């Protein structure tokens, strides 16, 4: 299938799904789906680092925060310099949204380089802790900048991310990351995961490969953040804590570290589960849900650490069924 036909087809899918999501659902289910979409982008991008490259990053929420605040600053402070209609006019604001996403992603990616280069020389536990530390530092940094709201939060963000944008973001993220994984440079990520010494011996700089996966993941996390900012029209640093990073890690682990379809399924599942539990919350003043989240994670680790799909994609499971049939 030629690329032109492929992308036209994708555009149609995005418009159809976007329309369905915007008009076929009640308000509340729509917000759940929006959050699920954002989480899918986060989970799929994190899987690139944790699952496919085998590096344990625990600071993903930090990159999301960067993208969110940069994207929001872009539409709130910069776009109005081009004229107020850029954020209010139905057609022009689409450009604002697109540029906000790109800006959010790029800056997040740059921060990814900044964090990644020193951190990715470390292994395993140390890398995990350092990324956790950086995630928190980013959040504390944002907390102390008054012009983007600080502790009170960033208000006044135009609500220009509708379901079309979120569906589009999800589909594009999945396509891009899938293509990256399938390409020859993409296999280098998995080589690093399997055996770093051998990868080095084959003439590949493992640090460069790890930073590459880290930066790509940071970019998409930034995009997710920008979508988040323009859907909820409000940002608060307390959203982007380690707790959120942990939720994304849970999604990646549950779906299977190394399975993109697993991340998509798990992100959907856990986002919906969390919302459903919110209804069932009669016992607690705070988060029964997080207790359950933690418990689910522990049980997966004990009983089925490979998650739902392990390292395979859901379609290989179908293919095998066909073979044995």
């Amino acid at each position: 299938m030629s690329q032109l036909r492929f992308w036209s087809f994708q555009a149609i899918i995005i418009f159809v799904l976007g329309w369905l999501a915007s008009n076929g659902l009640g308000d509340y289910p729509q917000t759940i789906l929006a959050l699920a979409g954002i989480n899918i982008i986060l989970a799929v991008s994190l899987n690139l680092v944790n699952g496919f490259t085998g590096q344990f990053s625990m600071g993903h929420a930090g990159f999301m925060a960067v993208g969110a605040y940069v994207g929001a600053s872009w539409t709130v402070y910069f776009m109005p310099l081009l004229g107020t209609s850029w954020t209010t006019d139905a057609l022009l604001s689409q450009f604002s949204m697109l540029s906000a996403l790109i800006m959010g992603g790029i800056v997040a990616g740059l921060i990814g380089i900044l964090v990644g280069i020193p951190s990715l020389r470390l292994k395993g536990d140390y890398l995990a802790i350092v990324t956790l530390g950086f995630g928190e530092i980013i959040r504390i940094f944002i907390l102390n900048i008054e012009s983007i709201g600080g502790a009170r939060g960033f208000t006044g963000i135009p609500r220009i991310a509708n379901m079309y944008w979120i569906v589009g973001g999800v589909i594009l993220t999945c396509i891009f990351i899938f293509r990256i994984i399938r390409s020859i440079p993409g296999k280098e990520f998995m080589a690093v995961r399997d055996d770093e010494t051998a990868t080095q011996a084959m003439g590949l700089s493992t640090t460069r490969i790890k930073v590459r996966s880290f930066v790509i993941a940071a970019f998409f996390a930034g995009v997710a953040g920008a979508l988040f900012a323009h859907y909820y029209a409000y940002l608060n640093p307390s959203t982007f804590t380690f707790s959120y990073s942990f939720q994304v890690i849970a999604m990646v682990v549950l779906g299977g570290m190394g399975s993109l379809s697993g991340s998509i399924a798990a992100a959907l599942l856990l986002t919906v589960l969390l919302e459903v539990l919110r209804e069932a919350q009669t016992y607690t003043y705070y988060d029964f849900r997080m207790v359950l989240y933690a418990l689910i994670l522990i049980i997966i680790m004990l009983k089925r650490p490979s998650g739902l799909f392990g390292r395979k994609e859901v379609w290989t499971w179908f293919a095998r069924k066909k073979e044995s049939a």
Partner: protein
Amino acid sequence: MRALEIKNLSISFGGLKACQNVSLHIDERELVGLIGPNGAGKTTLFNLMTGIYKPTEGHVSICGIRTDRMRPYQITNECRAARTFQNIRLFKDLSVLDNVLVSSHLKVDYGLWDVLFSTKKRQDSEARIEGEARKLLDVFGLDGKRDELARNLPYGEQRKLEIVRALCTKPKLLFLDEPAAGMNDEETAQLMKLIKFIRDEYQIGILVIEHDMKFIMGLCERIYVLDHGQLIAEGRPEEIKKNPEVIKAYLGEEAA
């Protein structure tokens, strides 16, 4: 200019002198063997030559370039030296073909944009690279199993795959660490033919560590003997066979 030149190489781990004052060389397209009793320091020497360890004294030059301060991946890329490992280090969860494609990275001439948008350039490049990889696999009889996971291959084929993978980096110098380990006589004989073929076909210098004497004697043009980190003999197979120092190292005082 020699393919490999080592002068006065030494390394100590704490108090243990793993290599002492070793000097050796390989000319282009030579088939050289490195033997010695267990623990003599052969793999340590390999690791020194491929940048995994840094020597405490002496230096290594590959194709005229000083390598003892370089990282392993730089040595492979810039000096065109590739290696296999004593305990097979294949990418176990990747397929046979993927193992080989990873080391074909030098042939990749497209970038991120081409990958994301699946441009003609990427499609053509990947088809070409894959075609070349499969041809190479075919030479070694592995093309039929190209989609198998590397971990599922029988032992002998895993060792062959490791060699093929190293070849995809287009080396001028190849280090083989016990390539015949665990093979029976028939497989060993096949491997000998294969290695000679590699040297002739791809014009590569090869340094082999092995314990199988028939293999080494039948394959190599020159042999170095290492014992307790020091070079105790060098020469053609016939000379080495009769060298009393060598016999002493392997069999003890009395046999000599």
